[in-house]
C-alpha cells in the first residue's frame, strides 16, 4: 500500500485500542511490561499523527485524508473520518500527550495498573475519534465512548475521600448535555431527511441543509448545553474543580488538555456551522458568559487554597478566551481561539503534571503546606516558572499568541468585550504569581519539605516535549497558524453563506399569509417551522 493511501486516520484512532486489547493478555502483576507496551503504542500513535501532519496540505482548507466506509447504510450511518486545519493540531496535541501521560503515571499508579492503562488507551481512541469523525452518529459514539474510561479514571484511581462524588457529578453533568444533543441530532436527521428525501448522518450533507430559524434555535440550544458543559462555560463549570481535584494526576492532565477541547471543538465543528443563524444570534450572550467566565474564573482561582483547584478555575478563565475568540467570527479571533485551545492543553496539562509531581512527594496539594520549594527543587522551579509564565501569557511563549489574537479579533468587532477580557490578563498574573510565590518562594517553614528530591530524568522527559512546543508556538507561531488559516476562512465563509441562505428562505414564505411572530422564547421573531417544511 502506498504511503499516502494508507488509512492513517483510522490507524491513529485505533492504535491505542489495539494496545488496550493486547494488554488484556498480560499478567496482572507485569506492571513494567504493561507500561512499556502502552508507551510503545502511544508513541506509535504519535508517530502516526506526524505522518498525518506530513501528508496534510497546509494550503488547502478542505477536509483531507478522508476515509469512508458504509456502516449502517439503511439509516445513512457511515464511518467517515477526515482532518482539516482546525482539527489537525487538536489531534496532534492529543497524540503528543499520549506517551507523556503513560510516562507521568509510571510511579504514581501502583494499583490496578492493567485497568488503568486500558482506560487510558481506550480514552485516547475516543478523543481522537471525536476530532476526526465526520458523521454525526460516529461522532456521538466516540463522544460517549470516552466518558466511560474517564469516569473510571476519576472513580477508581482518584482521591479516595471524594472520588465517587466527583466522578458521578462529572458523568451526570456530561450526560444531561449529551442526551439533549442526541435528541437534537436525531431531530436534525429526520428534518433534513424529510426535506431532502435522503436520510443521512453525514456532516457535510447536513451542513448543506438550511435549518429553519425556529428549529435552529432549539437545536443550537441543545448542542450549546452539551458543549458548554464540556468546555465548561460559566455557570456550568462546577463539575470541573471537583473532577480535577479528585482525579489522579494524569486524569487531570487528559481532562484539562484534551477533554475540555471537545466542547470548544464541538462548537466550531458542529454547533456553529449547522446552526449559524442561531449561533450568530446567540453571540452576545455567549460572549457575556465567556467574559463572566474569564473574570469569575480568575477571581475564584485567586482565593483557592488547593493548587489543583486553582489550576482548575484558571481553566474556566482560559476557556472563556477560547469561546470569546470563536464568537468574534474574525479570522484572527477564530485562529486565536484554536491556538488558545492548544495552548491551554500544553500549559495547563504541564501545570497539572507539575502539581502531580509534588503531590507524589508530599501527598498534599494545599498551597499552605508548601513554601520555599525553589531552594530544594531548583530544576523543578525552572519548569514551574516557565509554565506559569506561559499560562499568564508572557510574550515569547505560547499563551501570548493565543490571547493576543483572540483579543485583537474580538476588538475588531466588539471593542468593549475585548476591554473587559483584557482586564482578565491582569488577574491571571495575580493568581498565578501569588500561587507561585507561596509554593516556591519564601523560607521553608514546613520541615517535611526540607528533604524533597528534585525532579529526575523521567520527569524531565515528561515535561520537555511540552516545553519545546510552548516555546515554538511563542517564537514561530506561523508553523501553526499557516495550516489553520484556509480552514478557518472556509469556516467563516460557510457560516456567512449559510446564514444568508436561511434568511432568504425565511423571507420567501411558501404559503401566503404566514406572518413572523415572536417565538415564546422571546429571542427573535421566527417563522412557523411546520409551514416551512
Amino acid at each position, binding site marked *: 500500500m502506498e504511503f499516502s493511501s494508507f488509512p492513517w486516520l483510522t490507524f491513529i484512532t485505533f492504535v491505542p485500542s489495539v494496545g488496550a486489547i493486547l494488554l488484556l493478555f498480560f499478567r496482572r502483576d507485569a506492571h513494567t511490561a504493561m507500561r512499556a507496551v502502552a508507551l510503545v503504542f502511544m508513541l506509535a500513535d504519535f508517530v502516526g499523527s506526524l505522518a498525518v501532519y506530513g501528508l496534510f496540505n497546509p494550503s488547502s482548507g478542505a477536509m483531507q485524508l478522508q476515509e469512508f466506509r458504509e456502516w449502517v447504510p439503511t439509516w445513512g450511518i457511515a464511518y467517515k473520518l477526515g482532518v482539516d486545519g482546525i482539527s489537525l493540531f487538536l489531534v496532534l496535541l492529543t497524540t503528543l500527550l499520549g506517551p507523556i501521560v503513560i510516562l507521568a503515571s509510571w510511579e504514581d499508579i501502583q494499583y490496578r495498573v492493567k485497568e488503568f492503562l486500558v482506560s487510558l488507551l481506550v480514552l485516547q481512541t475516543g478523543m481522537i475519534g471525536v476530532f476526526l469523525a465526520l458523521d454525526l452518529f460516529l461522532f456521538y459514539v466516540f463522544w460517549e465512548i470516552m466518558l466511560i474510561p474517564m469516569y473510571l479514571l476519576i472513580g477508581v484511581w482518584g482521591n479516595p475521600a471524594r472520588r465517587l462524588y466527583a466522578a458521578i*457529578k462529572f458523568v451526570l453533568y456530561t450526560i444531561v448535555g449529551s442526551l439533549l444533543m442526541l435528541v437534537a441530532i436525531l431531530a436534525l436527521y429526520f428534518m433534513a431527511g424529510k426535506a431532502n428525501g435522503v436520510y443521512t448522518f453525514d456532516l457535510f450533507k447536513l451542513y448543506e441543509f438550511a435549518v429553519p430559524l425556529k428549529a435552529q434555535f432549539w437545536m443550537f440550544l441543545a448542542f450549546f448545553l452539551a458543549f458548554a458543559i464540556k468546555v465548561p462555560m460559566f455557570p456550568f463549570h*462546577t463539575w470541573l474543580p471537583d473532577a480535577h481535584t479528585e482525579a489522579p494526576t494524569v486524569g487531570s492532565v487528559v481532562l484539562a488538555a484534551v477533554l475540555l477541547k471537545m466542547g470548544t471543538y464541538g462548537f466550531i465543528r458542529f454547533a456553529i456551522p449547522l446552526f449559524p443563524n442561531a449561533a450568530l444570534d446567540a453571540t452576545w450572550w455567549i460572549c457575556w458568559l465567556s467574559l463572566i467566565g474569564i473574570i469569575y474564573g480568575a477571581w475564584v482561582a485567586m482565593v483557592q487554597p488547593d493548587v489543583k483547584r486553582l489550576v482548575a478555575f484558571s481553566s474556566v478563565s482560559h476557556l472563556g478566551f477560547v469561546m470569546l475568540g470563536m464568537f468574534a467570527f474574525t479570522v484572527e479571533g477564530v485562529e486565536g481561539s484554536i491556538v488558545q485551545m492548544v495552548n491551554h492543553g500544553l500549559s495547563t496539562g504541564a501545570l497539572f503534571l507539575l502539581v502531580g509531581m509534588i503531590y507524589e512527594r508530599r501527598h498534599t496539594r494545599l498551597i499552605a503546606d508548601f513554601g520555599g520549594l525553589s*531552594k530544594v527543587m531548583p530544576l523543578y522551579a525552572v519548569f514551574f516558572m516557565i509554565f506559569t509564565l506561559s499560562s499568564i501569557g508572557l510574550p515569547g511563549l505560547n499563551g501570548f499568541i493565543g490571547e493576543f489574537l483572540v483579543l485583537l479579533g474580538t*476588538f475588531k468587532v466588539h471593542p468593549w468585550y475585548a476591554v473587559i477580557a483584557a482586564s482578565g490578563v491582569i488577574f491571571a498574573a495575580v493568581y498565578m504569581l*501569588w500561587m507561585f510565590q507561596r509554593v516556591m518562594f*519564601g523560607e521553608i517553614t514546613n520541615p517535611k519539605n526540607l528533604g524533597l528530591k528534585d525532579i529526575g530524568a523521567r520527569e524531565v522527559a515528561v515535561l520537555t516535549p511540552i516545553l519545546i512546543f510552548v516555546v515554538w508556538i511563542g517564537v514561530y507561531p506561523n508553523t501553526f497558524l499557516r495550516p489553520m488559516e484556509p480552514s478557518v476562512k472556509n469556516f467563516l465563509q460557510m457560516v456567512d453563506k449559510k446564514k444568508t441562505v436561511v434568511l432568504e428562505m425565511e423571507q420567501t414564505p411558501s404559503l401566503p399569509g404566514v406572518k413572523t411572530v415572536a417565538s415564546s422564547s422571546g429571542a427573535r421573531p421566527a417563522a412557523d417551522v411546520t409551514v416551512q417544511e
Partner: protein
Amino acid sequence: MTDLVWLIPLFPLIGFLINGLFGRSFPEKLIGWIGSGSVGASFVVAALIFVELVGMEPASRSLQKVVYTWMLSGDLNVPIGFLVDPLSMVMLLVVSGVGCIIHIYSIGYMHGEVGFRRYFCYLNLFVFAMLILVSANNFLLMFVGWEGVGLCSYLLIGYYYEKKSASDAGKKAFVVNRVGDFGFLLGIFLIFVTFGTLTFTDIFAAAPQKLTQGGELVTLITLLLFVGATGKSAQIPLYTWLPDAMEGPTPVSALIHAATMVTAGVYMVARLSLLYAMAPISMTVVAVIGGATAFYAATIGITQFDIKRVLAYSTISQLGYMFMACGVGAFASGIFHLMTHAFFKALLFMAAGSVMHALSGELDMRRMGGLKKELPHTHWTYLFGTLAIAGIVPFAGFFSKDEILFYAFERNAGFWIIGAVAALMTSFYMFRSVFMTFYGRPRLTPEAAHHLHESPPIMTVPLMVLAVLSLIGGFVGIPIFEGWHKFGEFLAPVFAPAQKVLKAGHAEGHHSLALELILMGTSLAIAIVGWLLAKWMYLSKPDVPDRVIDEFKGLHTLVYNKYWIDELYDFLFVNSIVNFSRFLWRRFDDLVIDGIVNGVASITLAWGRGLRLVQTGLVKDYALSILFGVVAVIGYLVLR
C-alpha cells in the same frame, strides 16, 4: 553593518542560554565574564552601527531590518523586525553601554552569592529584552520587550526569594505593570484597527490621513499608551511598585530601576512623538502627570532615611521631568535627560551599593556618616553623581535639566515653577544623602564599623567610568552656541514630523538669549541653595532636622509614610477583590450553582425514595391501586 542590528539583542540571549543551560559547573568568574562579555559585544556592534549611521545623510538615517515574519493571521502581519534610527541608536548605546558597566560591577558585588549564575542569567535576559524593546520596528515586538523586561524585573526584585518582602515586591511590580500593560494593549488594538498595521514607519506615514489633528481617536490612542508608560516608568498613579523594587540587589536597581527599564515609557512616548503631537490633550496630560510626579516624588524623597529609597523616589521624580519634557514638546530634551540620568543615577545606585557592601548591607543613613575617609573612591564618585543630578554646572544633569526647564517655561510658566521647586528639593535631598553618608560624625553599628572596607577595583572602576560620564556626558548638548548641541541635531530628524505639527499655527518662537541665560542662572542658583540648605541642616547644625520634624510632625508623618497611598490601594483594590472573590467562591459557586446541581440530585433521589414506597410487592396493595384507578376513570367518565 546595519543589517546586523539583530546581533545586538542576540548576544545577551546567547549569554543567557550558555550560562543557563550549561553554566551549572562554571566557576563564578567565567559566568560573570560570559555575561558581561555578551553585553559588551552588543555595545561594540551598536557602536559600529552608530559610526555608520553618523556617516550617512541625516535625512536617510532610518533603516529597517526584518529577520522573519513572526505572526501572520488574517489582516495581521507582524515581523521580527528592527528599526535603526538616531532614537533607537541612542537607546541601544545607553542600554548596552551602561548595561555592560553594571554587569562588570556585578561580578564584584555579587561575589560569593549562592545564586550567582541565576543572577547573571536574569541580567542577560533583561538586557536582551530591553534591547528588543528599543530596537523593535513594530508595536508588538516592542511589547515583547516591554513584557520581557517586566518579567526580568520581577525575577530580579525577587532575587532573594527567601525573603517575603522581596518576593512580595517582585509580584507587586509585575502586577502593577500589568495594569499599565492593559492600557498599552488596548492602545495597540486601537492602532491596528485604525491603521491595519503595527509597524511604526507605516503608522507614521499614514497618520496624517487616518487621524485628525486633535481628534478623539488619536487622543484615546495616545492616552491608552500613556497608561502603559505610567506603569513601566513609575508615574502617578502607578508608581508604587518602584520604591519596593529596591528589594532587589543594588546593581539591579541601578540597571533596571534607574538607567534602562523605567525609561521605556519615555522612549515609547518619544518614539510616538508624531501621534502625541497630533493630540494636544494627551500632551497636556503627559506634561501634567510628569510635572506632578516630579514634584510629588521629590517631597517623599526628602523624608526617607533608606539611601536606596531616596534614590528610588529621586528616580521617579527625574522620570517625571522626562515626561514633562515630552509633554511640552521637547522630546529630544527628554531623551537627553534620559541619557544623562542613566549615567548619574546608575552611578549613584552603584555607589550606594558600594556603601552597603562596605557596611555589611546597612541601608539606613542614620547609621552611616563620616565614611569619606574609609571609602574615598565611593565618596567622590557619589559626589559626582550628586553634582550631576542636582544640576551643578558643568555636570551632565545641568545641561539636560536646564533644557527641560527652559522648554517648560516656554510652554507655561506653571510647569517651570513646579520643575524648579522639584529641582530645589532634588538638590536638597541629594546633598542631604551625601552629608548623612559621607560627612559628619560616624554613627555606624559596631559590627559594620569593624568590617568597614573600600570596595575592590572591579566595583570602583565601573564607578569611575560612570563618574566621568556624569561629568562630560552633557557636553554633547551645550545650549546657546549654534552647532554645539550635537545631541539635539542628531535626534532632530526623528522628531521633525512631530515638531512640524507642533509648530503649525504657532509663529516661529524666537526665544531671547537673555531669557535663556536668566533661566539658566536661576536653575543653577536653585541647585546651590539646595546644596547650602542641606549643608546647614545636616553638617553645621545637625539638631535642626529633628527640630523641623517636631515642628511639622503631622506633615512629616504623612510624607514619610508616602501619603499612605499603598495602604489606600490595598484597601481599594487588593482586599476588596480578594474578599469579593471569596464571597463568589463560597456563596455563588458552592451554594448557588452546586446547590442547584445537588438539589436536582436530591430531589430525584427523594422522588425515587417516595415512589419506592408504592412498590411494596404485595398483591393486595396493587389490587387496591387498580381499584382506585378504575373508580377514578369511571368517576371521570360519569362526571364529565
